[in-house]
């Protein structure tokens, strides 16, 4: 198997606040291989954007970062981005790391022509390109996204939302990054345009070796455009594995509940997870999902579940699967630890997101 371009090990990103640290990403481990698309899903507030920024070294100064983010360029030895000076990271951005945002309008400068955006990006990361080379590279990248040459000197507002998102993707790709994070890139778009953008992102892995972390709350998008999926809850990855496998046979109770509560064309009854993700200043003890989990056991409220690698390769962090895989682990839950957690306390609208 090829070596991962990105290896994240026990990454923590905590924001300092008056109330204490917000543990937005709290011990996360995963790999992304060349050309692979990893979907990152979960309710809002679970730490997806923080994780996406964390692996790009884009966390605010007030955030504490710990763990490893190892980036390997082709054939290179790999270097840990955590602890690297901001200047170093800035140098890597573009050629190695790219970022695509939800609302491109806020990222494209309204006063600059599209051509100027490309000139700026290419000049700052690849010194010594001639004007002609810049133009050729930019047009090639735009053409790949279906933007004709005749629009090269237009301003951002002269484009539709879908075209702007294509321009953002072209702008990220023109630097030929090894690795891109796309944070909710289609949330502001209509269904048809969203489907077009998803197709473009899905084609990326065929046509380039670019790896992609695709953050989205739309599970359908992950099922269609991603090779692997990581489900995030309260700063942890609770389940990760092959996207088709996870969607066909969700293992972790949170993944199951998330899938059940999604309104799709096959929805015949409304289902929802009571309450909302916890405050990450004081996350619940034990399994962080236990206050909302329909199959929580008494031990879940006190002891954190271990990660188990299942025969399918899927990794899940839940006591149910842990005990099934290794029955002796039940002892860790303590006496009576397997009893159902006395009626998950009524969760009212007061806790709703």
């Amino acid at each position, binding site marked *: 198997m090829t070596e991962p371009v990105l290896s994240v090990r026990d990454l923590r990103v905590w924001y300092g606040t008056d109330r204490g640290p917000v543990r937005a990403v709290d011990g996360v481990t995963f790999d992304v291989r060349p050309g692979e698309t990893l979907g990152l899903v979960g*309710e*809002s507030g679970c730490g997806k954007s923080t994780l996406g920024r964390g692996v790009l070294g884009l966390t605010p100064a007030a955030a504490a970062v710990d763990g490893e983010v190892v980036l390997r360029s082709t054939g290179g030895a790999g270097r840990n981005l955590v602890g690297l000076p901001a200047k170093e990271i800035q140098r890597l951005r573009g050629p190695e790391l790219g970022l695509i945002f939800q609302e491109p309008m806020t990222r494209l400068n309204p006063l600059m022509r599209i051509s100027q955006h490309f000139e700026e990006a290419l000049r700052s990361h690849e010194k010594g390109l001639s004007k002609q080379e810049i133009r*050729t590279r930019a*047009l*090639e990248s735009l*053409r790949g996204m*279906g933007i*004709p*040459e*005749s629009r090269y000197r237009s301003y951002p*507002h*002269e484009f*539709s*939302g*879908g*075209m702007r998102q294509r321009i953002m993707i072209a702008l990220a790709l023109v630097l030929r990054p090894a690795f891109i994070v796309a944070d909710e890139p289609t949330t502001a778009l*209509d*269904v*048809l*345009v*969203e*489907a*077009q953008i*998803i*197709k473009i992102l899905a084609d990326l892995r065929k046509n380039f070796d670019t790896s992609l972390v695709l953050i989205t*709350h*739309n*599970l*359908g*998008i*992950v*099922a*269609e*455009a991603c090779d692997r999926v990581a489900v995030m809850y309260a700063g942890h990855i609770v389940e990760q594995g092959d*996207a*088709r496998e996870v*969607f*066909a046979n969700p293992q972790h109770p949170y993944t199951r509940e*998330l*899938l059940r*509560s*999604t*309104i*799709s*064309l*096959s*929805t*015949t009854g*409304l*289902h*929802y*997870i009571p309450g*909302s993700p916890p405050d990450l200043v004081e996350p619940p003890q034990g399994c962080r999902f236990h206050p909302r989990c329909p199959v929580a056991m008494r031990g879940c409220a006190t002891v954190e579940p271990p990660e188990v690698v299942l025969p399918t390769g899927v990794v899940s962090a839940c006591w149910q699967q842990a005990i099934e895989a290794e029955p002796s682990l039940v002892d860790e839950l303590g006496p009576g630890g397997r009893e159902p957690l006395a009626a998950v306390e009524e969760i*009212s*609208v*007061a806790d*709703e*997101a």
Partner: protein
Amino acid sequence: MLTKPDIEPSGEGAAAQVGEPLVEATGLEVHFGLRGGLFSRFSGGPAGAVRAVDGIDLTLRKGEVLGLVGESGSGKTTLGRTLIGLTKATAGSVSYRGQDITALGERGLRPLRRRLQMVFQDPHASLNPAMDIRTAVGHPLRIHNLVADDREYEARVVDALERVGLTPPERYLGKFPGDLSGGQKQRAVLARAIIAEPELLVADEPISMLDMSVRAKILQLMLDLKRDLDLTYVYVTHDLASAKFFCDTIAIMYLGRIVEYGPTEQVFADPQHPYTEALLAAIPEPDPERALPRELPRGEIPDAARPPMGCAFHPRCPVAVAACGWEARDLRTLLENRWLELAPEAASREKSLFADVESLAADGQSSVAIAPGRGHTPEDVLEYLRHLREEASEAEPREPFWHGVVTMHAENGRAVVEFAPPRDPRLSLIPATGVQVACHLREPVGSTTGT
């Protein structure tokens, strides 16, 4: 006027009885004035009226949940607002319980306002941040003078909060919008909408700005309110999945028109309009067993100030025919898309056949005279276009553009391309389905609809 579809309740809202006509729109139009100044200069071309709603007939019955579905810019919000008198119609009429509300002034509308309420998309923007929940939710009671004293006011507000699940109410009365989550704010907005005992609620994308996990809850709340308060809903959305679950009847909108209209179950089981088919095919499906690779329609919804000729969907329609409204700017799109696929050198060689490709951008032209580029003759241009047509006749999927080209010939030093005269597809009923559809491919045999 066309036959109205038989309402066969099918959505979840159908549990209640669907009864007599409550709101009827006839030939409804909302055209927004000429675009002036900056905006028209940016958007290019002559400034024109925006035909936000462009000739709509519909009947909403008591107890029905009607979904207005389409991409943004298709006129859903404007139609929803006009149905309850919040936006003025520029032509046609809307009657509510037999009374033409388009004829009423502000004073005449006031007593109706309390019966016809609207819930907006963005709960954050719908609530004044400086107003506590007690004041915000009870606001309609004050405006319509519905309570005698403060005690009655308080009791009504408490009741509304309980109905929307903001319990215990005492906990919320003194709170400000900033203290509430997105879902809680939308509950407060719903409380304000129902407090004056409305009959009809127009809900404009009420769940689309909410977090995934809250959407089902708010939809459930709307179902509960409908059942408890005997409401009728117009549900505006771009999300087909929630519309399928929630609505009895669906109207699919495109650029100010309804293109397909009928019982939800029927529309989803057997979509008739190519646009409906496209929307359905575009929905990402979380179940890997059901996900299919698919062809997507190209392009995006056009500017409503410069709608395409004929059927407004034709530039994106994979199955369009000659009469669908082909025009000069479709040729430009065809050429530009072709050149995107070619190597830059080949593309510039082909481009040099044309003096000015941009001149094809004008709208509303069923015939175009193309000036050849320097060093080329009209015959060169014609030969090139014929070559493209030849190539297209063998390619899959078929490029529908060429169906629309009637003749290509040289005239006064130009290459002239003439398109088939555009016809406007009109909504017509498909027998035995209760579904109306506006597409030339679905017209009853022998009919001569259109203009």
